[in-house]
């Protein structure tokens, strides 16, 4: 570049920098101006350039274009759109990389932290996912990996302005949290979902050092009790807290500190307490935070049972919280107090009863007022009768999850196809369902497929393995076939019950939008796996356990694996040779093989047998942190 050009491009990058620092409000103002002025920076640019150039050359078209592009790309938030934009040409790739503020990484091992920081230079928000979902069910040995450490180290250097970190199924240590708290002065949001490896001492550091903290959400994570009073570690001044969720923290808390924190957090909208918070404490919190929109109610049980007037008026507290639209908790519910939530029922859009043993009679008086509910989670203790009550009232229901009170294979199972059918008839707008049961019929599943065309997520878990339709004795093929055929928007499917290869032929034929498929104890042969791998063009995540699929089935997906996020096959019939074949054929795919123990040794019985195969695409080759029990082929 000539001296003049260097000068002008230096000026231009300054303009760009200035431009990019604009917050969204001023950017929105910028759009109302005609595009060619580009909020006057381009014209200023042109002036500067004409002063510096010896001859009257027009500004390099690429630079102007990049400027305009940045202008436009700032408003592209969808990562799919951004990915597409980045493929147009190098120039667009570069500009897109500079304007991507939110990065989503679905598999932390698909690339190295260095690649992230080299490509994207202005990241403010990072979403990172680690272990595959079947790790939640003890199918993966501890210490498999997915450590946050290398990521926090890399981003601490590269993105000092980082504001948001959202982790799922990652191993996060207290040191990692400390480094995070120290490295990012403007840090605003920390969300840890299904994570482990840290304790209350790590939380305390975040609470103390992240002075701009708006969101601290710990969801379904394992948090060790280091006996640190982390709630007292928040700064004494007014906080910026908008959301505080600690319902998974299994340790007692300092109630007074929590109360004082709530008092000095005027922006607090979401508060989810843990089971150590009794009704009395909850009452005090509610009285001090009537602006709450989302409340996790703790145990919902009184510490002391007082008589008559001495008892706090819980219903009044709920009445005062006019904005509550989301209720959860009820970890140790004392049924007599449940009616206290009645004042907020009409406004509720989300209700989570899934930790409470609620009977149909307890549910009915509550649910009949919940006309606006969109999300409902419960235990199967509500029985088919309870589901019928939900179907009668909750016409706006979009998401239903019914978990088993007794999560064993041979438990009683109080709900069945009756409840499912009732829901399908009453809740026509249903989009997502997770349903655990012991008895199901093809008829009920088919009815749902016909009544609920908006379904995008259908997850049915018939808990007894290989259970057929309990009325006809036939496999569940027809029911699941109807689901994939009729629910044209289906993106996620989990199957169960007695299923033959036929079910999978339907999935392959009709499941054109399916991205995630979960299979357990199903199918007869490799054909089933082939149907799916050859049929479902959008398939990204495939998790299979205990099904008779072998090397032939695995091979049938060779053309796909580079375009998928991951494939998990455990307790199937794979051999090392078969897995090695895939590894050799696909250099961009990492093939991990391991058992379910971290002390696996050579077992003569099972030498060639592969207990678990986990394969995923990766830009940076096999990971260096694999523990001994993991073999990367």
């Amino acid at each position, binding site marked *: 570049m000539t001296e003049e050009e260097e000068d002008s491009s230096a000026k231009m990058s300054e303009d760009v920098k200035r431009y990019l620092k604009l917050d969204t409000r001023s950017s929105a103002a910028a759009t109302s101006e005609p595009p060619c002025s580009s909020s006057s920076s381009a014209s200023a640019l042109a002036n500067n350039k004409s002063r510096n150039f010896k001859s009257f050359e027009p500004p390099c078209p690429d630079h102007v274009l990049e400027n305009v592009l940045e202008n436009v790309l700032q408003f592209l938030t969808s990562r799919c759109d951004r990915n597409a934009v980045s493929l147009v040409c190098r120039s667009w790739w570069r500009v897109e990389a500079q304007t991507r503020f939110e990065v989503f990484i679905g598999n932390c091992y698909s690339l190295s932290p260095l690649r992230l920081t080299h490509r994207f230079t202005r990241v403010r928000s990072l979403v990172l996912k680690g272990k595959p979902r079947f790790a939640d069910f003890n199918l993966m040995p501890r210490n498999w990996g997915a450590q946050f450490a290398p990521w926090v180290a890399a981003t601490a250097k590269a993105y000092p302005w980082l504001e948001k970190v959202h982790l799922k199924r990652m191993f996060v240590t207290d040191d990692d949290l400390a480094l995070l708290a120290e490295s990012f002065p403007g840090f605003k949001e920390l969300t840890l979902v*299904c994570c482990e490896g840290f304790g209350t001492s790590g939380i305390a550091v975040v609470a103390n050092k992240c002075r701009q903290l708006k969101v601290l959400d710990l969801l379904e994570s394992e948090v060790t009790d280091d006996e640190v009073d982390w709630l007292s570690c928040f700064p004494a001044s007014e906080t910026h807290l908008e959301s505080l969720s600690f319902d998974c923290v299994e340790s007692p808390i300092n109630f007074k500190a929590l109360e004082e924190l709530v008092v000095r957090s005027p922006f607090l909208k979401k508060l989810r307490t843990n089971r150590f918070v009794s009704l009395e404490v909850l009452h005090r919190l509610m009285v001090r935070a009537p602006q709450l929109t989302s409340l996790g109610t703790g145990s919902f049980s009184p510490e002391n049972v007082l008589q008559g007037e001495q008892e706090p008026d819980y219903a009044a507290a709920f009445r005062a919280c006019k904005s509550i639209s989301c209720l959860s908790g009820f970890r140790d519910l004392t049924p007599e107090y449940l009616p206290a939530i009645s004042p907020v029922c009409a406004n509720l859009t989300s209700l989570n009863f899934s930790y409470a043993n609620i009977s149909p009679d307890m549910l009915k008086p509550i649910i009949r007022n919940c006309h606006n509910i969109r999300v409902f989670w419960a235990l199967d203790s509500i029985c088919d009768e309870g589901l019928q009550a939900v179907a009668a009232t909750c016409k706006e229901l979009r998401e239903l999850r019914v*978990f088993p009170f007794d*999560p064993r294979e041979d438990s009683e199972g109080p709900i069945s196809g009756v409840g499912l059918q009732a829901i399908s008839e009453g809740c026509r707008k249903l989009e997502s369902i997770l349903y655990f049961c012991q008895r199901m019929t093809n008829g009920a599943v088919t009815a749902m497929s016909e009544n609920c065309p908006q379904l995008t997520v259908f997850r049915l878990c018939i808990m007894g393995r290989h259970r057929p339709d309990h009325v006809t004795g036939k496999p569940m093929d027809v029911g699941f076939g109807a689901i994939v055929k009729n629910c044209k928007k289906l993106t996620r499917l989990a199957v169960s019950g007695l299923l033959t290869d036929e079910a999978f032929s339907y999935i392959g034929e009709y499941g054109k939008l399916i991205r995630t498929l979960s299979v357990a104890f199903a199918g007869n042969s490799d054909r089933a796996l082939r149907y799916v791998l050859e049929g479902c063009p959008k398939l990204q995540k495939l998790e299979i356990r205990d099904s008779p699929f072998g090397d032939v089935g695995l091979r049938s997906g060779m053309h796909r694996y580079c375009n998928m996020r991951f494939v998990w096959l455990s307790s199937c019939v794979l051999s090392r040779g078969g897995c090695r074949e895939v590894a050799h054929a696909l250099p961009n795919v990492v093939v991990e093989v391991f058992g379910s123990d971290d002390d696996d040794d050579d077992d003569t019985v099972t030498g060639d047998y592969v207990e678990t195969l986990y394969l995923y695409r990766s830009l940076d080759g096999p990971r260096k942190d694999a523990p001994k029990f993991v073999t990367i082929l």
Partner: protein
Amino acid sequence: MEKVGDYDELVNLKATELRLGLPGTEETVSCGKSNKRALPDDDTEKEIESTGKTETASPPKAQIVGWPPVRSYRRNSIQTKKNESEGQGNYVKVSMDGAPYLRKIDLTVYKKYPELMKSLENMFKFSVGEYFEREGYKGSDFVPTYEDKDGDWMLVGDVPWEMFVSSCKRLRIMKGSEVKGLGCGV
């Protein structure tokens, strides 16, 4: 499925001496050389007499690891409501000669040998024959064995149940010829 019919008959005939690997002696044992307890477990006897057959009273099914797919976080949260204090569970691997897959089962789910044996038979679709104190298992090619803390391979049923649960590291259902070394008559 192997030899299911014989198994049933034997069970009914030998009501008083019946055991499917009932507890043996209190003494520590090594492969089949120990003295075994002579008396049957009272509970088992009653159970069999009242039901007449063994097939009706279904023992708890072997709890497969991670099934049903409910996160342990949720399991534990609901667990605290139940009054039973279920412990951590003692999962051991089970392999069967000739089967290409392994299983894991939780030994703490069972209270005695017959329950365990029923579960294993269900899981691997085989039949174990009848257990005799001196001669081990008869009437089937398959013999359940386990590796104890010392690394010795033992016959399932030789030691008292509690001792078995605490010392069993893994199970292996052996087939025919290999079993001779354990002093079982096949």
